[in-house]
């Protein structure tokens, strides 16, 4: 069953997104133009939940993506969209949502190869080093051929 997108968008946690952007975002961030995102959204039928004249951050946040990072250098797996979750249950629910065809075609339109649901631990603040280690195991435990959508637990 497809999740209802209206309900989904209202359940995305703004605070959690800001926290996620804050701990991952460094000087290098993968940027798309607002137009590119609009085109991708319309091609993937995710358009009905967004409003016009918003910045790229708001546009991505409206479909649950906190940020998009590049892990290409020097021989990494590619571009990754990141959706935060604050519990195991939320993470599993979000994994179902981002695995839908609509999200897949949105990523395809922008050339994004992977999508992580980042399950954050409520006890302690997330750290970049931890994400680094977890993403390394994610890549290699799948023999360098990880699935497009995964949950990464911090």
């Amino acid at each position, binding site marked *: 069953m497809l999740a209802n997108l209206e309900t989904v968008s209202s359940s995305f946690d703004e605070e959690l997104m800001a926290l996620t952007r804050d701990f991952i975002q460094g000087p290098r961030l993968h940027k798309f133009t607002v137009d590119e995102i609009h085109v991708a959204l319309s091609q993937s039928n995710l358009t009905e939940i967004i409003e016009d004249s918003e910045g790229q951050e708001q546009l991505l946040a409206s479909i649950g993506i906190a940020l998009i990072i590049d892990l290409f250098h020097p021989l990494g797996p590619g571009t990754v969209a990141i959706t935060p979750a604050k519990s195991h249950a939320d993470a599993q629910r979000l994994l179902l949502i981002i695995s839908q065809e609509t999200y897949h075609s949105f990523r395809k339109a922008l050339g994004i190869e992977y999508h992580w649901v980042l399950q954050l631990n409520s006890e*302690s603040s997330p750290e970049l080093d931890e994400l680094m280690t977890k993403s390394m195991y994610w890549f290699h435990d799948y023999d360098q051929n990880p699935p497009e959508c995964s949950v990464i637990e911090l």
Partner: protein
Amino acid sequence: VELKDGLRAELYVKGFAKEARIASDIPHNSEATIQLLDQYNQHNLTWARMYIERRREMERYPQVNDWIDSVIKGQQYLGSADEQFKGTVKDTLLDTAFSTDLIVKLNDNRGEAQVIAIDVTVKEPDQDSKLRKIRGQREDGDASKKFNPNRNYPRLRSMLGIDKHIVLVMDAKQYPSYATLLTELYAVANQPSQTAAVNLSDSQEIDAVQFFAEQRKVEKVDPPDLWLKYSKGLSSHSVQLSTEVTSRAIAGGHSKQEILQMLASDPQYQLFVKKDKGDLTRAQKYASGILDKVVAERGKKNNPDSPQPEQHRKPGRSR
């Protein structure tokens, strides 16, 4: 700016190591360190590099991965890479690709120097996974999986000249005192095992918040910090180094008294003290001599009418 708990704890231990005069380093420069990491710890290095540009300390160095590439491939680097930059990259990679926040050196009971690498953490639940890592196992201890990026940790440790490697666990709010830290590190130096977790999260002796509040007050005038601040990035030695640092400190608006105090941290000053077996006369004369010289030179620069010193040039050398 509010510092993260982990970073604050790390700074506390580094401050302690400096104060206790046990702060040390590996003998390898930045390039040699990167080459060893590439040879023996490649997965950890590769993934550290993927995230290195996101780290705050790299904000000013967007070209960091190009430089690391050139080091690994043994190619000449065409951009600019100064010593400060290289040092920052080395420290960052030792931290992210080799679980080492700082290195100390102290003598064990038999008088033999022990070099100890320290991984500081305020997350007690991470103690076991961090210990497995420095012991050369997967963080999650899952022996059924064939991927293990840490298998060369013990080997690389000895190649880097490190005798012991520990995970130091502290409470984020209550730090162990310097005395406790020193006692524990001597215990590590004397133990036969190469790796250990030292959990000091229950020692609760120093209030972390208060410590850093006081630290901020002291920072403004603390002479050793002034020396570190103004000597950063300089590669000169002895008189030239003293002169350059003093010149920077004057430009930074510090008083003569503060600069003289700062010069007590000058290696040249300390060399005189050591040679003269604690007699400060010659060292102090040296410091005030440097200060007078720099002040006089700055005076001349600001007064172009005053006579310029004679230029010394070797005859017969023209371009």
